[in-house]
């Protein structure tokens, strides 16, 4: 009884020490720039970029595999910030025509199943079972995760409504 217990304990101890040693010696150093860029992103891991989350997108940016406009949720300001950080030239053509979007619940076909609530990475949808749901404009990143969750197709994305506060003068034409 005692011998196998001792043998297994020693074995476990040895393997543990080896793993601990290996973890220190063969540690993969994270890319600091990628970490900084990941910190600039919305951080919702929504997947709109087609990559596995914000961290993967940041890695792809640093590796040069993705353009500065990779993150639709961050919009033009984020793209500009990334381009400035990585010294990339920026082509906003792909972003400008879309603009920021947010989810909207069509109240007449919402059945109150509350499935979208679970899918939302920022808890932007409020509601309860058998109650009509609503979207908090400020919290919604327009990632569209809820759109696929909805069994009745009641959720769609629409452009962020223009308000007096965020209206801006167009750039004038000089000469």
């Amino acid at each position, binding site marked *: 009884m005692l011998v196998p217990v001792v043998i297994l304990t020693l074995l476990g101890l040895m393997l543990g020490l080896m793993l601990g040693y290996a973890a220190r010696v063969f540690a993969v150093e994270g890319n600091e720039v990628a970490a900084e860029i990941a910190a600039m*992103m*919305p951080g919702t891991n929504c997947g709109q970029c087609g990559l596995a989350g914000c961290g993967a997108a940041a890695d792809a940016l640093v590796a040069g595999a993705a353009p500065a406009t990779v993150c639709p949720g961050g919009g033009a300001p984020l793209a500009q910030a990334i381009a400035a950080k990585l010294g990339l030239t920026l082509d906003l053509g792909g972003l400008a025509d879309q603009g*920021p979007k947010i989810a909207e619940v069509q109240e007449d076909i919402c059945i109150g199943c509350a499935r979208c609530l679970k899918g939302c990475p*920022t808890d932007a949808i409020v509601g309860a079972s058998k109650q009509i749901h609503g979207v908090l404009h400020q919290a919604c990143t327009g990632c569209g995760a809820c759109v696929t969750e909805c069994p009745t197709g009641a959720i769609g994305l629409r452009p962020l409504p*223009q308000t007096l506060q965020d*209206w*801006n003068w*167009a*750039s004038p034409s000089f*000469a």
Partner: protein
Amino acid sequence: MGILERLNGGRWGVHPHDDHKRPAADTPLRVMPLPAKLCVPLLQHVGAPAKPVVAVGDSVLRGQLIAAAQGAVSAPVHAPSSGVVTAIGPVTAPHPSGLPFDAITITLDGEDRALEAAGVDDPLALEPAEVTRRIADAGIVGLGGATFPSAPKAQLGRKLEVQTLVINGGECEPYLSSDDSVMRHRADDVIDGVRILMHAVGARTALVGIEDNKPEAIAAMREAARAFAAIRICPVPARYPMGSDRQLVEVLTGKQVPAGARTASIGVLVNNVSTCAAIHRALRHGEALYRRIVTVNGGAVAAPGNVLAPVGVLVEDLLAFVGLKEAPARLVMGGPMMGLALPHAQVPTVKACGGVLALTAAEIARPAPSACIRCGSCVKACPMGLQPLEIAARVRAGDYDGAASLQLDDCLACGCCAYVCPSNLPLVQSFQHAKGTLWARAQQKKRNALTRELADARRERLERDARERAEAAAKRKAARAAQQASAAAPGGQEMPS
């Protein structure tokens, strides 16, 4: 004023040859008959919009509270006449975008029944805090155009122990004469309002700055202020933008307000003459701010002049009252330099609306812009000492951060640079565009930070939930095991290992 400024004359600003103030300024004040309806906006001030306290179908009286202030910086809204509330919802805002904002629409009954108003015989005997409360309850905001609620401003002045009030009777915008009219016809009200405000703030002196192109107003105000040594009437040279608080403070006190700071930080509080008249009416007569003097002027107006009009009157009703000679090519709310072009005439006026202009095509004609010749006229004209040509070059290239590094934030959007520009460059619009873009960028950054916080909170919550579920399951398992154990050994003896 530094030596350099003395050497080159310190000539900021512009002086239009014809300020178009007369003959409108010299016509007697008219009272506008009540229109069929009024649309009283909920957001007529800096801060949070007021919250409606009436419902559709309610009858309201003149002076009745219809929307209450929300939060520390806000102002309530009162019914300008009696009638029935017929709608609460979006109407077109007096803004070039033509976007809607919320307003309370009152269909007037024409009887103009008033709520019983309770004034105070001697406001100067009240506690300063009580005076401030009454100013807040009357919904008084800065009527010079900035629309900052007057009560929090007075509180700030008291907190910072401001000793000097600067009363702004500059009214430097061409075409406008509503402040001039207030000073000419209600000088005693203005001076009384100044005394009440001095009492509320705890200030010792008040300097009333009036541009020297308004001799009648200066004479009337001098007469009214004769008995009060603490109030000095100071004529200032007519130069645009003399009515800007920073410029007026510098001319009157010699002190310059630091960039990004309020005038209160150098011990001065600026209030407009119309605001002081409104404070007088609120304290002495218990009258809330629901009407004001509006200048209706411009080449297309048949009988230009000053009109006492209710707040929320539609611009088309106002224009119908004064009559139009021809269809206006452009409608402007405010002055020609800083006013906002209106999308159409079905927009309501607001508390801060000192003028409505109906301009003809000849008045708004503007030659096509050409290239910047780097003459530097705009640098000389800029009252804030900025370099408009350099900022504009950066905005044009899309370098908004570069524009911001040249102190774009300090730009008043007064329009002096565009006025003097020999190349007719749209300088102000480019600055407005850049400011808006920088603001949107900052908003997006805030939004990203918020969503990030929310996502992190959610991740944490999900992990905690999973952990708690696992712990609960383990506990249940342990409880079940203990139960089984005690069932197997009813005698309470321990099982042999």
